């Protein structure tokens, strides 16, 4: 790790507070999220009532997995 050229603000914005306090239970790892992502996306497309609590919690707390899951859903919808 190296120093940045300029100081970063040492402030907690509301989005950061909200993300720090996100309830990410029940626990699901990024690896398990990836494993479930295909079935989750198909369920999201075909059955809007489908609920996977652990996936939902993970996607709330992991913006990278969330982007990829939403992208897969969008791709299926476009198919």
């Amino acid at each position, binding site marked *: *790790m*190296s*120093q*940045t*050229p300029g100081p*970063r603000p*040492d*402030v*907690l*914005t*509301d989005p*950061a*507070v*909200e*993300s*720090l*306090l*996100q*309830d*990410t*239970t029940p*626990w699901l*790892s*990024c*690896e398990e999220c*990836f494993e479930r*992502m*295909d*079935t989750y*996306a*198909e369920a999201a497309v075909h059955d809007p009532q489908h609920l996977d609590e652990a996936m939902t919690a993970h996607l*709330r*707390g*992991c*913006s*990278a997995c969330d*982007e*990829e899951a939403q*992208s*897969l859903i*969008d*791709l*299926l919808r*476009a*198919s």
Partner: protein
Amino acid sequence: MTAVRRDSSRDAEAPPASQADSRAPVGDPEPRDWVSALGGTGPEQSTALRELHALMIRAAGHQVWRMRAALPDPSPGAVDVIVNQAADEAMTALLGKLHTFQGRSRFTTWAFKFAILQAATEVRRLQWQHREVELRDVELRPSPAHEGPELSAEGIDLAGAVARAMSRVLTPYQRRIAVALLVDGVPIDVLAERLGSSRGALYKTLHEVRTRLRAELVATGYLPVSQAGPARLPQASPISPTDHEVSPTSSAGTR
């Protein structure tokens, strides 16, 4: 930081990312037994590999197009290279896991996710390739310049409580990871690459951070005991933001 490796030998198969959504409709029934075809030999395998690569190009193109604003060079030529490389690498990853496909989803859906992951990771890597990532163990303070009408003294008060909880209940490592990911906005896979770690390991750290912070804020009266779901700014703070900041229900003061 590594230089961008590019293999443009397959560019002829790459659609412009902007057209990716409209190409190669998947169709309703699964057109083939993909696992058998890909694991077979001869012309059938060659055809399956070619069609799988087209699927990967399509999904990678879709992903890069979604994230094009993050690309340092969003020119069609550069996008083509990214899409092709992501498709190639995703295909390799998929074929290595072909035996794990259990048919719980369509094969095409299962395949798409490999390309989406690879392409998204590559775009984030490119976005940050010339940016320093710093692990900062800093004492944070509430943002003095809140934006938006919904933000209020209670929001500042909650932010102050979170900042104090970060000092009290997190380890220096947990603070550094939390600040990098959630304050400085470093993508989790970029941070993992720089640290020689993994997305999963960093997410686990983040999960522990959140568990500790939530427990501390419940203990200090800033979150209700039974609160489930995403944290929201409280309707009312237990203390005035100008008071000495110890909640009535707190068993521990601030420092």
